[in-house]
């Protein structure tokens, strides 16, 4: 019998969705190991968070009141101390930007293996089997490891935990070495701004790496004009400086839910899909029939965007 310790994620006073998903993942794993599911709730309004997180399947919630926002040193110190105290078999964390800012450090400090961005997990005795992707989602792999481990889970892969729990909520007295804290968060800033809010658009003409060159964007703008639609993009277009940051759809950009989303030359990396999968109708234009975008598209054209897009624009001009 071995326990699971799952760490929750929050920002600016709100718990993030993955905090409820990690309860589901953690419960599954704890059922496999025959142990308890412990949650760690670190910084921010921890009592308020603990109340919300007290859902079915949680056995214990450990709160650590220390500062308002995330600090990786506080998280690293707290989680290593919780590991020493509770001796769980697995430490689960979100594979979020903050998760990736402390999980590898916790693993290294505890001399445990770390397996990141998992999309499925099971345990059998001392063996953990983790499913993850490689090569930008082109393949899935299963990976096995023995003994204790730190594991990060991808968001939106497990359902959120529901119901009301009766977990014991306890303040954990973490011994934080303030001298070891070498980074300070000075604030947050929303990016982009500007003239257009793509999250409000009814129709998005969205462009990705397949457009190849900045000059070719004219094709996309022409189509958007003809359809009276708004132009958005995947990450590489914004990275190249071809469109401003407020046009980026995805995990690190905006979440959009238009009536129609036309994905042009977008392969559909998981980070992009996280931002647009709520669209009513998704159309993909891409030469690669195996591109991940095809898994969530309602309609697809497996052809060259340089042929299809002008032909489409012509119809509406």
């Amino acid at each position, binding site marked *: 019998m071995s326990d699971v310790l799952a760490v929750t994620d929050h920002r600016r006073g709100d718990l*993030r969705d993955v905090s409820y998903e990690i309860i589901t993942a953690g419960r599954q794993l704890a059922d496999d190991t025959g142990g308890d599911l412990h949650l760690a709730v670190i910084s921010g309004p921890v009592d308020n968070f603990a109340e919300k997180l007290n859902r079915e399947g949680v056995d214990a919630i450990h709160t650590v009141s220390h500062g308002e926002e995330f600090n990786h040193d506080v998280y690293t110190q707290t989680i290593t101390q919780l590991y020493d105290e509770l001796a769980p078999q697995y430490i689960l964390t979100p594979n979020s*930007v903050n998760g990736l800012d402390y*999980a590898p450090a916790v693993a290294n400090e505890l001399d445990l293996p770390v397996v990141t961005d998992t999309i499925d997990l099971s345990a059998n005795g001392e063996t953990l089997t983790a499913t993850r992707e490689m090569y930008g989602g082109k393949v899935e792999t299963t990976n096995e*490891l023995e003994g204790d481990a730190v594991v990060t889970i991808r968001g939106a892969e497990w359902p959120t935990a529901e119901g009301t729990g009766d977990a014991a909520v306890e303040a954990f007295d973490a011994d934080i070495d303030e001298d070891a804290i070498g980074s*300070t968060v000075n604030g947050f800033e929303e990016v982009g701004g500007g003239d257009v809010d793509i999250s409000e658009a009814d129709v998005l003409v969205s462009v990705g790496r397949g457009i190849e060159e900045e000059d070719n964007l004219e094709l996309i703008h022409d189509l958007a004009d003809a359809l009276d639609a708004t132009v958005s993009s995947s990450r590489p277009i914004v990275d190249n400086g071809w469109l401003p*940051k407020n046009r980026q759809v995805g995990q690190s950009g905006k979440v959009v839910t238009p009536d129609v989303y036309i994905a042009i030359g977008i392969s559909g990396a998981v980070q992009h899909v996280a931002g647009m999968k709520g669209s009513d109708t998704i159309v993909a234009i891409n030469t690669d029939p195996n*591109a*991940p975008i095809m*898994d969530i598209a309602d309609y697809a054209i497996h052809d060259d965007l340089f042929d*299809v897009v002008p032909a489409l624009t012509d119809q509406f001009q």
Partner: protein
Amino acid sequence: MKILVTVKEVATVEDEFEIDGTEIADQYLGADLNEWDDYAVEEAVQLQEAGVADEVVTVTIGPEDCEQTIRQALAKGADRAVRVWDDSLEGVDLLDVNAKTEILSAVVEEEDPDLVLTGVQAGDDSFGATGVALAEEIGYQWGAVVNHLEHEFDGDTASVRRELEGGVEELTDIELPAALTIQTGINEPRYASLRGIRQAQRKELDVKSLADLGVDESAVDSDLELTDMYEPESESDVTVWEGSADETAAELGELLRDKGVAQ
């Protein structure tokens, strides 16, 4: 200031491929400089051009074949390179985070940089963990997923922005020495100039074995065993339009009119 940049040659995969055991069959694989590391190299070179850095050194774990990729980084402006390889690394199909951390930390100890820049992740195995694990191992401060770095350092502090989810950036000060994992979009990586490519041929590329670095061969024993690789099953019920571009565009046009998008 001395900057060490980790540079990885990653495997790239063609659109159509076959899997051979737990690997993609060789004939469908290419090789390239890891995209995230390209941005890390550019950031280091820009710091050098701004007069902040005195020396930019790259480190790569990889066989002789990847020297072409290392020369790319040198052609873009890095001063010299270290490549780590020996027989014990040959045939390892998954070098996990702990192994990379142990090898790279030995190089950091030798080089003693003020700043280590790594890509956020590698395009092939996508662990996204080595930079932070390395920082913890060597007792450096760190920041993950950095998409802006102020080039004017305030004493021993680096001011960065970390790219959080949902279009929010975190403004953070990090004490040096530090390791930062660099996100794409932080800068515009340059193309190597012809002059740069010529100069790169003459730059020092030092090859070290694990023994040279004082790393025990057991460091490459991975805790993680890759047991299966397969193409993800599509759960899609996508309607695929076939035909010429005019025909498929007409189908899409009809759908858009049905949806009331444009008349």
